[in-house]
Structure formats: structure tokens, C-alpha cells
């Protein structure tokens, strides 16, 4: 057994918010396996290195190459694979981000190892070095525990916001190692990148989300959801059915195949709470449900709810919320 390697993603000139979560998960495993936690950062700046150290990395591998400015699966898979070949980690942790999940999975197969994705918990056995993970399957209808069979290059992709980052400990510094990796020309050429303009609060960052389901009957209803979201300084989200029906575009979709959100308050209106949807919002601090079907699954997940017709409930809820928050 060697070490626990965390693939720390970066965002512009800082570490991605998932880095702290993964390092915290790494530290949990570290205490179980008695192994050090190391981080690999591609094109790091000194701030990122300091931050990774104070968030729990014992050792930091720095890989620098202009090719990593282009964030494609192909380039980062090559980078992570080559790093792992030099390090031979016992465990590799990555976050379930667009880049992280693809890069980690491909790295696992290239290493002739395997991967567990969308994990909600992780533990290690000290004697064998084998990792067990807990993950939802069947769209969240069931929960499975999987155990690896070989204690080398066990790749685990953790669901975002599953672990709380450790408090910053600025007195902690990590050992720094430069890794040299030769980068081939990529087979895929990026022609362009189009970023959608976004007004208001981003769904992923929102402290309050007002979400709507197919039970709203049509796209017009979302005007009322927008109004409530505005009063509460929140964002609007939707179920997959709403987005598939074309009422809103897919950037609004919350769920297993949409966005994972973790607001303080998630107000669901005419959302039944299918496992597929809950997979994207179950870590919300408070869920409030407005639904006409008292047996809907959402009431099992919500802390407060009203059973009835949303067209009657929502206007008076919004009006009262406006009075309360403006007073």
C-alpha cells in the first residue's frame, strides 16, 4: 500500500470547490488505512498548492504543461494516468464533475483497474487495503455497497458535496513534488467552446431553489416560480420531465442526469420526488413540498408540506413570503 491520491481540479486560478471535499474524504480513508493523502494538481499556482496543503494534503504532485489549459477528458486522462503510473496509489479519488467523472473512469480502465462512480460514502480495510463504497443504484431506488478486489489503483468518484471540507489549517504545509509527464498531440481537436450567458443566481450556487414539475401543466406556470425565486433571492429549477417537454432548457434540470444542488431551502411545486430527481437534491438542508398527491414520494423527503392545488397555494404563499421578507 502506498498513498491516497486526490485528483484536485482547478477553476480559473483557484482550486475547484470539490478539492476540499475530496481531501476530507482522503483524510477519512487515511485514518482507516494509515496512508498519507496526496494531491495531484495540473498547472498549479502557489495559492492552489498552499490551499491544498491547508485542506489536508500531505504531499502535492505538481504537473505543469500548457496543454492542460484545455480542459478535455483526453488531455487530463493522459495526465492522471501518467501520474498514477509513477505514483502507484492505493486509492484515487475524483469528484463527480463533468471532467472528474470521465477522466477518473478512463484512467481506471487504462490502468487495467476499475472504478466506482457516484459514491456517497467510502471506507477502507486496514489489513487488506481494500476499499468499500456506498452508492445509489436503480436511479436511487436501491443502495449498494461495492468492494474492490485488488488494493492498487482503486478509483472512486465521489458525488459532489458528499463530504464537508476540513477547516483550513494554515499551519499545515505539504511536501511538493514536480512530476514530469510528456504530452502527446491530442486526437480530438476542440473547435470552439460556447458558454451560455446566465442571468440571476446560478442553480448550483443558489441558497434557495424553487423547483417545478410536470404537474404544473405548462411553461406559463414558471412565471410564478420565477416571482417567488426573486423574492427569496433564489433560482428556479425543474424536473427532467419539464426539460424533456421543452418547457425549460436542460440547464434548469435537477437530478441524476441534471445538476446536483445543495440549497438551504428547496421548495418543490408539483414535483413527485422520483428517485431520479431526488438524486440531484437530496442533500438540500430543507425541502418543502407542495403537491396534490399526499402519497407522493416527495413528502417522504420533505420537512414541511402542503397537500393541495398549487394554483391556490402558491399565490398566497408567495404573497405572504413577500410581506415577511420585506418587513
Amino acid at each position, binding site marked *: 500500500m502506498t498513498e491516497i491520491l486526490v485528483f484536485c481540479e482547478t477553476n480559473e486560478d483557484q482550486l475547484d470547490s470539490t478539492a476540499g471535499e475530496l481531501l476530507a474524504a482522503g483524510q477519512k480513508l487515511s485514518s482507516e488505512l494509515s496512508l498519507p493523502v496526496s494531491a495531484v494538481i495540473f498547472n498549479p499556482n502557489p495559492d492552489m498548492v498552499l490551499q491544498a496543503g491547508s485542506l489536508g494534503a500531505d504531499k502535492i504532485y505538481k504537473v505543469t504543461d500548457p496543454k492542460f489549459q484545455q480542459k478535455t477528458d483526453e488531455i487530463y486522462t493522459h495526465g492522471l494516468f501518467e501520474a498514477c503510473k509513477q505514483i502507484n496509489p492505493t486509492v484515487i479519488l475524483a469528484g463527480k464533475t463533468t471532467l472528474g467523472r470521465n477522466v477518473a473512469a478512463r484512467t481506471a480502465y487504462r490502468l487495467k483497474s476499475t472504478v466506482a462512480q*457516484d459514491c456517497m460514502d467510502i471506507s477502507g480495510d486496514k489489513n487488506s487495503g481494500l476499499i468499500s463504497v456506498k452508492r445509489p443504484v*436503480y436511479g436511487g431506488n*436501491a443502495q449498494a455497497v461495492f468492494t474492490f*478486489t485488488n488494493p492498487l489503483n482503486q478509483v472512486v468518484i465521489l458525488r459532489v458535496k458528499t463530504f464537508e471540507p476540513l477547516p483550513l489549517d494554515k499551519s499545515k504545509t505539504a511536501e511538493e513534488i514536480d512530476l514530469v509527464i510528456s504530452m502527446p498531440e491530442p486526437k480530438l481537436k476542440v473547435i470552439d467552446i460556447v458558454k451560455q450567458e446566465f442571468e440571476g443566481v446560478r442553480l448550483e450556487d443558489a441558497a434557495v431553489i424553487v423547483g417545478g414539475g410536470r404537474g404544473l401543466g405548462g411553461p406559463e406556470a414558471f412565471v410564478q416560480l420565477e416571482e417567488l425565486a426573486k423574492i427569496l433571492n433564489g433560482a428556479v429549477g425543474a424536473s427532467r420531465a419539464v426539460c424533456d417537454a421543452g418547457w425549460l432548457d436542460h440547464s434548469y434540470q435537477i437530478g*441524476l*442526469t441534471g445538476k446536483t444542488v445543495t440549497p438551504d431551502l428547496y421548495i418543490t411545486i408539483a414535483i413527485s420526488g422520483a428517485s431520479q430527481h431526488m438524486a440531484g437534491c437530496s442533500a438540500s438542508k430543507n425541502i418543502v413540498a407542495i403537491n396534490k398527491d399526499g402519497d407522493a414520494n416527495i413528502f*417522504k423527503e420533505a420537512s414541511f408540506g402542503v397537500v393541495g392545488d398549487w394554483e*391556490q397555494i402558491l399565490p398566497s*404563499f408567495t404573497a405572504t413570503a413577500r410581506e415577511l421578507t420585506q418587513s
Partner: protein
Amino acid sequence: MNIVVCVKQVMDPDTPISAFIVDEAEKKVIPAQGIPPVVNGYCENAVEAALQIRDQQGEGTITILSLGTDFVMDVMKKPLSMGADKMILIQDESASNLDASGIVNVLSAAINKISDVDLVLCGQQASDWDNAHIPMGLAENLELPCITSALNIEHTEDKLIVQSALPDGYQTFEAPLRSLITVNNLFGEPRYPTLKGIMQASRKSPEIWSIDDLGISKSDLEPSIILSELKIPVSEGNCEIIEGEDDADSGRLLALKLREEKII
């Protein structure tokens, strides 16, 4: 152009929760009585992508490839009814014992056996085990460039122009024809089979292969991860239901309650 689309037969994801039963001792989901399985949703999106590429080209062969144990032929023929040309089913009792790496090794051996494959298309993930990494394992095994979550695929002479979804936008890749692309619901609705398509599909019979036909070494089928527990999660279910004189009153009381709890 030869396109292979990997598809999977899964339990209907719209099976009501009351009919979703787990045998914890056997670590298996019991198929719901009277609810037939379906072709995995994203796999249908991948079939649609293949059909659109063939439509653009005016020629090409689409082969559907699937691995499983208990195929229901009426279900599995749907991609043929949609317009795919051929179907190969690897029907093998031992398939249910394979882990993801084993599945990847079987499917990649099968794709190698189908001659002159250009493009491989896969649904992003299956709604049963939600692994979402079988396509990536195939790309690695077959050493193909891999693009995930395609929004649009355009075939121009000797290359593909593919838009791939990002959390807040998309990026466009230029890829060689020999690539692997994953597709999900963002690609767009799969077409409905036409009556003509259904008639044509009824006359086609799938080729049935077994894992032994593929010459895979035993060690490539050994699991690298094992399922050690499977259960239905218990939800707390302690929702406080707010009831007023009528629905409008309930809405008002709900807002007051959330204020009292310092939630808004």
C-alpha cells in the same frame, strides 16, 4: 460507414416504487410482475443518433449489440423497428456475474469481431446500475477517442463534428470517424417505430452469440469489484403537513411556518 450501437435491456425505470423489490440475501432486484423490461432510455437516444448519421450519409450499416441473460425479443427488437439494420445479442447465463470490467472486455471483444467498425455509439448510462463508465472502458480497450454527452453529430467526408454538453454550454470537437460517442436525453427524442419499420424488424432475426465465441481469457472475466450489499434505502418520512381552512390559507400558513423556523 459501419456504426455499432451498444444497447441494454433494463427493468422499466417507471416501475412504481411499490413494485420495486430487492432480495437482500441474493443481492438482486426482483423483476416486477407483469411489467415488461424496456430498452434503456439513453440507448434509444444513441440509436436515434446512429439513424440520423445514416440519414445524413444516405448509406451505412447500423448494428445493435447487446449483452444479457434473459432477452425479451419484442423489447429488444425496438431498435430494429426504429430502423437499425442488424442485431447481435450475446446471450449468456454468466453475463449476470460479470462486473463492469468484465462487461467491457466482452463488448470490446465483440466489437473487434464485427469487422470494419467505424463509429461506436453508447447511451451515457443504464438506468439499472447507473455505472456510466462502460462506454469509457470500451473507448480505452478499443483505443478510440471518446466524446461524451453529444448534443449533435455531423458527418463530413472523413470526420465528425460533435457538440458535447458542458454544465453551462457546450464544446465542439472535430473527431475521426473511428470514435466512441456517448449520448443521453440531451440529444433529443428517439423516433417512434413506423409500421413499415415494425414489419421489417419482424422479419429480421438477431444473431445470437455466447461469451465463449469471443475467445476471452478467463482472467479478463474475473471481477475487480464485487457487490457486497443491496437494499432499499429507508427515508425518514417525518414531513410536517400544514393544513389551513383551504388551499390558499395553507399556502399562507406554510410561509408563516417557514418564517417561524427561520428558514425564510
